């Protein structure tokens, strides 16, 4: 059920601030080299953590990647913090 390619990318997004910054600026470009299926790639680009979790991404990564993870299961989408980085729905940003 777990999917290494998803989890590896989530893990590196969590641990590697430079990759994360590139991803936040241009998700497609940042993950162009990753070995992902089309569905996985689309879910990353959309910041759709629920789909990534259903495709085999570990919950704790899906929740905890700074700015990208749902961080508490609130279904935060990537586009929102990008447009409004102090969005109050993300408690980490408070």
């Amino acid at each position: 059920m777990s999917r290494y390619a998803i989890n590896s990318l989530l893990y590196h997004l969590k641990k590697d601030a430079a990759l994360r910054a590139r991803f936040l600026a241009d998700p497609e470009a940042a993950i162009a080299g990753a070995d992902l299926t089309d569905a996985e790639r689309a879910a990353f680009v959309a910041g759709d953590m629920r789909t990534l979790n259903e495709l085999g991404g570990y919950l704790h990564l899906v929740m905890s990647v700074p700015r990208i993870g749902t961080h508490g299961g609130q279904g935060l989408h990537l586009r929102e913090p990008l447009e409004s980085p102090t969005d109050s729905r993300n408690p980490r940003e408070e």
Partner: protein
Amino acid sequence: MGRIVFAGAMSHVLDPDYYQAACGDVGRQKVTAVMAAIAAMGERFAAAEADALVVIADDHMNAFSFNCVPAICVRIGRTVQRLIQAEAEAFDKVLEHMPVEYPLHEPLATGILEQGLRSGFDLAMSWEAPVDHAFLSPVNTLLGARPVPPLVPIFVNAFIAPQPTARRCFQFGQHVARVVAGGPWNVGIIATGGLSHFPELLLSRVGETDTVFDRKLIHWMEQGEHEPLLDLTADELHKTGSHEFLNWMVLLGAVTPARAEVRYFGELPRINLAAVEWRLA
């Protein structure tokens, strides 16, 4: 001869603001209550004047990478560092007032490791893994302003399947007790995490718990009836969101057949909070 002089288990996200955000006022109330219960346990821990504190917890994909996910890993060396991560999660961030570095109880950790490998436990060892909220939130809440005694952090793989079985975790706890008994130290031991939350590790089920299951676990712990707990399957633990109970199984092995006394149990939609202490002979 060494003795286990204190044994407790407790939830490990101990951050009122976090539960306020996740569950509203009731979240803040209940986590504040469980923290008060843990602090009271800390009075008894302090009175026991332990030489070392063994902390059994799980990694949240902070300490280890997919290069090597150990089933059970003993943190050895002289010191351990608090996880430091840019843009840490809120419940790790609240630990930022704590020291960066903690002493380890090197001879006890090394004893658990060496005697474990000699006894057929395939333990991993780490000199570098940092400790996150799973270790430090309970330690912080237990000790308050008191100095942190030398730690023996032990990582159990709770989340990345396949995990060790409940029975194996219990057996490892029995090993820990044998090592303590063979040494000269008075030792405290805590297990952290749980109770039920995040069933099936699915985002769509975050916010569900299994109170019936938790009460069953508590009943068996209160009775000192550990046999049924040994038979818990990976599937049961996964479906009920009881992954972190594996840490508790290690503690149960270390203290069996002692009986548990519940210091706090509180239901939240997101997780059932608990603080439990064992009545040691």
